[in-house]
């Protein structure tokens, strides 16, 4: 089954169009990466799927269900997003417990206490963190909370916007391991934005290289590992990562 299907997607912010005619189809259970430099429109695609960039034309389907332009609860149940900066994406005056319970309250799901406890355990956080505030947690712990929040509604798809770029290497390793384990355990589909190609190599199956709002190339991770990318721009990106 196709988890995310984008057809001829154009996305604009006001008068400027930032994504042009993107067509992409991601089967269920796959981990797909969007790579490219800042301003290439990769995060904007995630935002449009999540409903945060409502000014789009074309077609976005999630498990065969066409997304509307407004808030779509059916889509929220299936698609959740994890943001880049764990310092900015958690409400500073809400406890971890409140942040994790909120999606449940919105969707009228009961049994909240137990669900919060189980989720903290799943992301490897001790129960004593439950009634703390974000400022009492380290960056890695906050990113675990952000992932837990995204998983509260038991979605099928996670949109990951540079989930580890604000973290130290050793913490990055922990979060990447966690994401890999959760994907295996819950059969999740990942759509991840990153500019770190080694992370793609570790976590993803396929990748799309973007530039100026267009997809330049779609490749398998095997091709990335072998350095067998077809387009000049993709090879440039690869060379920049490996270093001169």
């Amino acid at each position, binding site marked *: 089954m196709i988890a995310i299907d984008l057809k001829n997607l154009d996305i604009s912010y006001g008068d400027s169009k930032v994504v042009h005619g993107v067509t992409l189809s991601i089967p269920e259970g796959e981990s797909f990466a969007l790579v490219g*430099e*800042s301003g290439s429109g990769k995060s904007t695609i995630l935002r449009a799927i999540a409903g945060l960039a409502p000014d789009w034309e074309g077609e976005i389907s999630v498990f065969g269900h066409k997304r509307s332009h407004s808030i779509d609860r059916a889509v929220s149940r299936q698609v959740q997003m994890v943001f880049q900066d764990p310092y900015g994406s958690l409400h500073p005056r809400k406890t971890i417990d409140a942040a994790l319970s909120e999606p449940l309250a919105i969707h009228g799901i009961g049994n909240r206490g137990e669900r919060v406890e189980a989720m903290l355990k799943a992301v490897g956080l001790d129960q004593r963190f439950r009634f703390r505030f974000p400022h*009492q947690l380290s*960056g890695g712990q906050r990113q675990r909370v952000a992932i837990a929040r995204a998983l509260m509604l038991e979605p099928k798809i996670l949109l990951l916007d540079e989930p580890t770029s604000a973290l*130290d*290497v*050793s*913490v*990055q*390793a*922990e979060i*990447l*391991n966690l994401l*890999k384990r959760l994907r295996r355990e819950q059969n999740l589909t990942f759509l991840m934005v990153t*500019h*770190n*190609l*080694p*992370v793609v*190599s*570790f976590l993803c199956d396929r990748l799309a290289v973007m530039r100026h709002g267009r997809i330049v190339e779609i490749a398998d991770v095997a091709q*990335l*590992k*072998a350095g067998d990318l077809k387009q000049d721009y993709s090879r*440039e*990106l*690869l060379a*920049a*990562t*490996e*270093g*001169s």
Partner: protein
Amino acid sequence: MSAPLLDVKNLRVSFPTHSGRIEVVKGLSFTLGRERLGIVGESGSGKSMTGRSILKLIRKPGEVTADKLEFDGIDLRAQSEKQMRAIRGARISMVMQDPKFSLNPVMTVGEQIAEALVTHQKLPRREVQARILDMLRAVRINDPERVAKLYPHEVSGGMGQRIMIAMMLIPEPELLIADEPTSALDVSVQAQVLDIIDDLVTRKGMGLILISHDLALVSRYCDRILVMNAGRVVEECAAGQLDQAQHPYTRGLLAAMPVIDETRDELPVLDRTQWAGT
């Protein structure tokens, strides 16, 4: 070898907390000649504090002590604020992490670079203008006349960082401290910015301290590396020999980085039990 440019012995930086003073740099010693030194470590390892304490930029209630803190024979500990101002920028300068927060938003790029220059030297206006344009060209900005008239919000992150480098290098300092100069930038621009720093540092025979959390990057651009953890240097080695690092912390950091042809199913993580607090 000539006398070192910078000589630091037993540097300690501490801050007061409710439970007494906490040392964030615990007895650091190193010397620096006209070479490129990398300081690597994770958040909270004290690497930025080390860079700042050399310029005496640590404000009260923070406290810096050292047995020796000498720059080119000058005892930095004994310098007054006024004397320090003559050294900062002119002889030692610092490139900060994020151009978005470190450039003055209400001054044009040209004015800011000019300010860095005329604070330390009296020059005729025409020469100031010429030096600015030359410097912007040196950091590979293509049409310097136009860029000099722009405000910081009108330039991209990579260009902002190059502008900051231009501003820091125009008084021709002898020592450049670069604190995470590229961590706010894209991978594709990172290499460009570091190449520029590298090129200018080598050409002018300056000393460079590159502070970063990125081991691979530091090993590429430096001659010598200090690895810091929890306020102490755990390992010192030549950049080329990083892969033979001995200390478990350094080895842990190296292993935790995914590589481009990754085959491991799980990444090894550092054992944090030794400093597990909250």
